[in-house]
């Protein structure tokens, strides 16, 4: 297959997708194996020295063994559930604030100009710097974590929604106006559905940020969740468990991201670029 054929195949909605899929999965699995090899090589180079003997838990062998153990431990799944709940509630709150504001900011130019400086200023602040304030405002650690995740994710959601609104095909707006649409109908029946791909991207970014902010937020002093488990493993010096949790965090994040990508693939059929 020459390069032009490849190009057409890549950009066509039809064609033999299954063959490509097999190759992709094969390469993906090879990537994971390579990663484990690199991890093992680096680990042995460092931990073979006698003074680092206690840290041999960080090696792939003990870690993967511990990971298997974790997958059958109820405590671990409780921690996953607690962490996922925090991420979802945090993003839900961020979305219910960021999405309507994003639409309004994108639609009304004056609101856009008005809100540009404060939003740019606030989004540059590391979400974890709100930690002391979060602890002051909220009586419970749980509330503080929701607040931190919301602060971290509201900006990508808002900014991407605004971007989606500004990228709506002007012909659709002209058409709808010509057909007699009011402003509210333009927003509900054209702009919001037209920005669905951007909304999905915003959620994907938000999920990535939330998942990253979550662990340090759970170091705060709360006694559940994956961040807490890491702290706990450090205190009890179970380094294989510690490493296994880190890997588990990566795996769960990867799965969540893949789910959104899956929805995106389906939507690409409807909203071609």
């Amino acid at each position, binding site marked *: 297959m020459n390069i032009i054929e490849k190009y057409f195949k890549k950009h066509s909605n039809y064609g033999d997708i299954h063959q490509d899929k097999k190759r992709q999965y094969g390469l993906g699995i090879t990537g994971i194996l390579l990663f484990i090899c690199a991890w093992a090589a680096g680990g042995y180079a460092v931990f073979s020295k006698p003074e680092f003997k206690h840290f041999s838990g960080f090696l792939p062998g003990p870690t993967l063994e511990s990971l298997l153990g974790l997958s059958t431990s109820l405590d671990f799944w409780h921690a996953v559930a607690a962490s996922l709940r925090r991420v979802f509630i945090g993003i839900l709150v961020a979305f219910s604030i960021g999405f309507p504001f994003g639409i309004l900011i994108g639609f009304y130019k004056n609101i856009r100009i008005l809100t540009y400086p404060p939003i740019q200023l606030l989004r540059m602040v590391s979400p974890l710097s709100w930690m002391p304030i979060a602890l002051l405002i909220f009586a419970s650690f749980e509330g503080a974590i929701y607040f931190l995740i919301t602060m971290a994710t509201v900006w990508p959601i808002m900014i991407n929604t605004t971007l989606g609104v500004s990228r709506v095909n002007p*012909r659709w707006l002209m058409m709808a*106006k010509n057909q*007699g649409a009011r402003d509210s109908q333009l927003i509900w029946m054209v702009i919001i*559905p037209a920005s669905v791909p951007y909304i999905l991207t915003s959620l994907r970014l938000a999920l990535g940020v939330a998942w990253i902010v979550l662990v340090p937020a759970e170091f705060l002093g709360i006694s559940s969740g994956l961040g807490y488990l890491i702290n706990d493993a450090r205190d009890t010096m179970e380094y294989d468990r510690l490493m296994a949790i880190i890997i588990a965090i990566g795996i769960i994040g990867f799965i969540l991201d893949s789910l959104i990508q899956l929805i995106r693939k389906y939507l690409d059929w409807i*909203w071609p670029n």
Partner: protein
Amino acid sequence: MTQKISAKNISKTYFLPKKRTVATLKEIDLSIEEGEFLVILGGSGSGKSTLLNIISGMVTPSCGEICMDGNIVTGPHPSRSLLFQEPSLLPWLTVEENIAFGCRLRGDTKDIDERVNRYINMIKLTGYENYLPSELSVGMSQRVCLARALMGNPEVLLMDEPFGSLDSFTRMGLQEELLQIWKKRKFTVIFVTHDLDEAITIGSRVVLLGGSPAEIKHRIPIDLTHPRNPMQQDFQKIKAGIMDRFMTMMKENGTTLQTPGSNP
């Protein structure tokens, strides 16, 4: 014949950054009869789309006014339905839902399924009711746009080079379909094109835009009977006449190129 739409002394100047301006239209006076098929003919950048958008109410003229049935046009209205060169279907709606879109906006949902079906038959897309726009060809999409425009029972159909991006066979087919619908429904059509053959094939009157800013240079009635054949002698005679006028216009301008914004 009663007058449907009149443009009185329409001028339009666009303002660009750094105090530059583009005078697009100058003192356009135009009267369109009810049931007429008016073609606005001109080169690229001659301001014909601007004129159409002003008639639709989408663009406000710098000077002058548009009247429809004696009332001044102040904004877009479904009774003047616009069709664009590129299909303007909403990609997340099926063919059926796209056709019904305008009616749903206006809350006009009486017998909507039956009406949609009638139009799907009319544009010969039976069986494609549940297809998405990304699964249709451009010609099919443009027919869906036409059906959506007709669903609102427009009194005037404003068409901005609607067949411009189609191949010549599809284009001929659609011209024919449009003429059939126009004869049956007896609405007014204002059709913008830069294609001489197309203008003479479908128009009952051709208005020639030229100059910069554009003025109406000529108004040419086309009295040929339908169906018209571009190989007919009468057809050729009219075409030669229009081409002569274009040549003269270009000579008057001192150039064969019309660049928008070249005037102070």
